[in-house]
């Protein structure tokens, strides 16, 4: 790094300069594209699904603990706000799954052109809509017996 004199180099790292330096990512300089929404949604659904892991583990533990505890779990899950939450988790999963496959293709160096990325984004939106509706119908039509 050719920064000239030592004094100039020192001033670069002074507190004031560090505080005001531009930080990446420069979110405000980009023109909005709907592919951005998909990108941030991947992170949001990921965090939501991390919380969903708690429910999955509770379900399996309830199943291993016997009929009484399991039926209490079902009772809680059948409460309508919980049903809404479970439905949202299912949609979040389908989204994270579909967009995750898109990310894996990118990691393999495929589909990185802008037109391709837009087309795959469109496919993700369609796939999420169709698969979510099918799964929601399959799951919410069943009772707890």
């Amino acid at each position: 790094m050719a920064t000239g004199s030592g004094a100039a180099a020192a001033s670069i790292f002074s507190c004031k300069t560090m505080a005001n330096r531009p930080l990446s990512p420069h979110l405000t300089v980009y023109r909005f594209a709907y592919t951005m929404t998909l990108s941030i949604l991947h992170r949001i659904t990921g965090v939501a699904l991390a919380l969903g892991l708690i429910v999955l583990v509770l379900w399996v533990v309830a199943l291993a603990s016997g009929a009484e505890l399991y039926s209490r779990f079902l009772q809680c899950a059948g409460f309508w706000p919980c049903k809404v939450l479970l439905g949202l988790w299912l949609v979040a999963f389908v989204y994270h799954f579909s967009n995750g496959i898109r990310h894996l293709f990118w990691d393999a160096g495929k589909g990185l052109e802008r037109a391709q990325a837009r087309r795959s984004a469109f496919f993700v939106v369609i796939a999420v809509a169709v698969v979510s509706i099918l799964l929601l119908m399959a799951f919410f039509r069943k009772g707890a017996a």
Partner: protein
Amino acid sequence: MSQGPVGALLKYLGRDPGHAGAHHWRAQRVSALALIPLTIWFLSALAWLPDFGFDTVHAWAATPWRAVLLSLLVFCIAWHSQLGMQVFIEDYVHGNVSRPLAVGVSTFAHVLLGAAGMSAALCVAFRG
């Protein structure tokens, strides 16, 4: 900034010893690939069950192969989730103490959830 022995320990534990980033990146992809068949299997199996009552679900889960697959599913989700939450925390939580502390708490919670879920899944099938 002055930090006590706990802060110093957290700072030490939160360091990247080198190449950890590449390993993290690979592990996140490997766990994602493993989760593709596991989650398809799990959700389609649940969709085919006639109901979610205890007898039905227990009878379904109580076979050795399904117990192993179910515990693998929990393991891979906990693994993938831990890796993802680490990235999330490292992007948004700053500070020499709070960042490694948050990553540590998240990792511990994931290990706990993973171990509980895996042993419960195996219990359903292999309890005497």
